[in-house]
């Protein structure tokens, strides 16, 4: 009997060492500086209530033994269990007038919706973020508003919310003229796997719990934009100002950096199979996360753990080359010059890093298009930057000969050595 009991204990202890304790689902949160939740996220905070998102997710988790449903004040957190929440990290709408459609002379008003979220595992007792899994989605809708009406404010709040709901659901319900009953389109039964909500819930369901101590936090430490790129983005170079990041007060670098940081984090998480501490361009390290659960709102001051290893992303510049044309068509190549740096993070200042790897690269994308098409260079550059971030991340795992030849600005040997250093430091396992 004793032998069986011993075996049982051994099995159970292994089970515990594997960090399989349940986590507490504590709802939906928002990354904000201080009490600005509804002004920073006007659509998502409202949509959360309209669709009762916290309840919907709770119901999905209710049958799972590894998830304890409860607010952060639940007694379980006193027992030392970690908590998990879905944090909304960015909500942006960009409206850009692109002229008239040459086919039917209709106005082209491009409205792009950007939504960023992160599954955040945290220790309530230590007030510390332990793991984060980012996801960002951009979805563009073409409306028929004329130049004057092509603004965010000319669209009803319900339509904005419906479009964000489409991003969450992976659906395509949002149409002009949606009324307040648009919410009936969205329910727990029609969540698509391509939607952000399902994607993030899957991450929560397969989350491997960790203890507050003993793991080395890795994250995107810094995103920087060179002066040259900055000038190009503000229209002082070869291109008009970037439509999404220019406001009356100038270039909104914070938004640009957070988008690039989120993209970089997303691919690193996915390819290197590691959790990434969220990149957030804020003052200091303290993040206020307002959680909503069971009609209670609470502000948590979670601290980003001090990174042991950090990735920097540097945006160096943009270049467009026309590569030929016929009577009706034209071809162009858009190149984004960028680079990544990896090292041991020594402190909080930008220079507080012991650099272990530096990889500059140039990503290019080409497109052949009709001369009558309206081409937006910045859309192409944004896409190219995204491709570059994805490629560099994937090439760290397995070097693609073509990419190495065409895009990497260092020798294959050097790249391999840097990749080896990075993978060994982050503890990459195939």
């Amino acid at each position, binding site marked *: 009997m004793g032998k069986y009991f011993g075996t049982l204990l051994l099995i159970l202890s292994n089970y515990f060492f594997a960090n399989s304790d349940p986590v507490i689902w504590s709802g939906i949160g928002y990354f904000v500086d201080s009490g600005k939740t509804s002004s920073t996220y006007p659509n998502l905070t409202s949509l959360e209530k309209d669709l009762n998102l916290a309840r919907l997710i709770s119901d999905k988790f209710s049958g799972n*033994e590894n998830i304890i449903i409860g607010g952060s004040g639940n007694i*379980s957190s006193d027992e030392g269990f970690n908590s998990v929440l879905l944090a909304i990290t960015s909500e942006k709408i960009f409206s850009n007038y692109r002229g008239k459609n040459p086919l039917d002379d209709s106005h082209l008003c491009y409205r792009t919706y950007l939504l960023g979220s992160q599954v955040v595992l945290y220790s309530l*007792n230590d007030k*510390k973020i332990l793991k984060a899994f980012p996801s960002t989605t951009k979805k563009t809708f073409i409306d028929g508003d004329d130049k004057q009406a092509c603004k965010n404010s000319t669209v009803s709040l319900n339509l904005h919310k419906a479009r964000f709901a489409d991003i969450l659901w992976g659906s395509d319900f949002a149409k002009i003229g949606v009324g307040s009953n648009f919410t009936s389109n969205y329910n727990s039964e029609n969540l698509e796997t391509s939607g952000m909500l399902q994607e993030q819930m899957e991450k929560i369901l397969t989350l491997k719990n960790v203890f*507050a*101590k003993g793991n080395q936090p890795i994250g995107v430490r810094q995103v920087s934009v060179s002066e040259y790129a900055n000038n190009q983005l503000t229209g002082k170079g070869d291109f008009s100002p970037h439509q999404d990041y220019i406001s009356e007060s100038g270039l909104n670098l914070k938004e640009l950096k957070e988008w690039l940081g989120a993209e970089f984090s997303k691919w690193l998480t996915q390819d290197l199979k590691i959790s990434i501490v969220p990149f957030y361009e804020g003052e200091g390290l303290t993040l206020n996360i307002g959680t909503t659960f069971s009609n209670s709102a609470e502000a948590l001051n979670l601290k980003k753990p001090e990174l042991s290893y950090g990735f920097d992303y540097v945006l160096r510049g943009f270049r467009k080359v026309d590569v030929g044309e016929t009577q009706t068509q034209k071809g162009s190549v858009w190149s984004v010059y960028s680079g990544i740096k990896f090292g*041991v993070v020594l402190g909080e200042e930008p220079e507080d890093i*012991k650099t*272990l790897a530096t990889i500059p690269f140039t990503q290019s994308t080409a497109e052949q298009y009709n001369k009558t098409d309206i081409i937006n260079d910045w859309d192409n550059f944004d896409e190219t930057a995204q491709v570059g971030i994805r490629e560099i991340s994937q090439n760290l795992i397995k070097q693609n000969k073509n990419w190495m030849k065409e895009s990497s600005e260092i020798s294959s040997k050097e790249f391999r050595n840097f990749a080896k250093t990075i993978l060994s430091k982050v503890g990459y396992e195939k």
Partner: protein
Amino acid sequence: MKNKIKIIFVSLSILGIGFFPSYASTEVVVKGTGFNSFSKGCSKNKPRDKGLHEATMEKAKEKAWKRFINKQEDDVIDIYDENEDEILENLDDFILDMSVLNQECDKSSKTYELIVRLSIDDRAFNRFLTKATGNTSRQGALAGQTTLILLYPRVVATRIDAKRADVTEKRSSFEGDEVSDVDNNSASISERSIEKNAIIKGGSTTASRNIYKIGNQQDAQASATRALRRFKMRATFPANMVARSERMGVDASFLNTLRDEFIQEGNYSFNTLANLENFSMDIGAYQFIVLGSIDLSEARVDQQSGLPRVTAIVNIELYEATMDGNFVLATANESYNAVAETQEEAQSAALKKAAKTAIEGLFTQI
């Protein structure tokens, strides 16, 4: 069923002592870099020299700890400084975890570098400081009082050597014995003496003298302020007094004379001291004066660490400024040493340590 599972999880986790981290602690993470040169090459990215890896690790740990201390508020640093030796002796009590983030054994430059990550138990550190503060919180009577700081840090700019000459001096001395002669009716004392002559050769005809240049007054003033803060006192400086005296129509030019005397003559004159006394009575803005100099030596090599080592010699007086005059309460003639990477850093560290400790000592004496 689910509830049952939850209960099992909770109770087993309690049984599983050691699985959960101690939530009673708050953790602060700092990093430090250690650096050393080696002579015997590398093996498995470590130097072959015996003990060098451990010594470098210790250096990195010290650097990380220094970073942690530098992040603290001034008043915490004050208490830490007073208890530094004890804390360093028990450093491991405050460290929850230490891990190596990077190590590089560079064969070409023959250098070894280690970066460590230290998790510090902030709560244990604060608990220690609270206990230490309880032992030292006193001198409540001094709280709120103001002290005029006339502190002149100096480094030798020029040394004028004594003119040496051989001088022969004849000196006579007497050795005497008392002889008492006492009888029933009288008493007499007679003296028996022997004259001795001695000839002394050598010596100097003129005393050697230093011409100083002023050291970093900001460092001195900042340290003095910190020393006073321990007693909840305020500091005021010559610049404040000049501004105040202008408003009150009082002559404060003697403050410049006082500084010049310290730099050129080596010490204040009695005339200037008298002016300071009158000034105190006229202005009446402070209750104490700290007056004196801190002389900083040139750096010499510290035998243990091989780094520059500087000595600061303090010569200061504490006066009580009353309506009846200035009265000396305490004096300090002490020396302090500091070792740092460069001469400038060592001088700065020695000055700060000397100013703070000596001034604290003066007020502790009264």
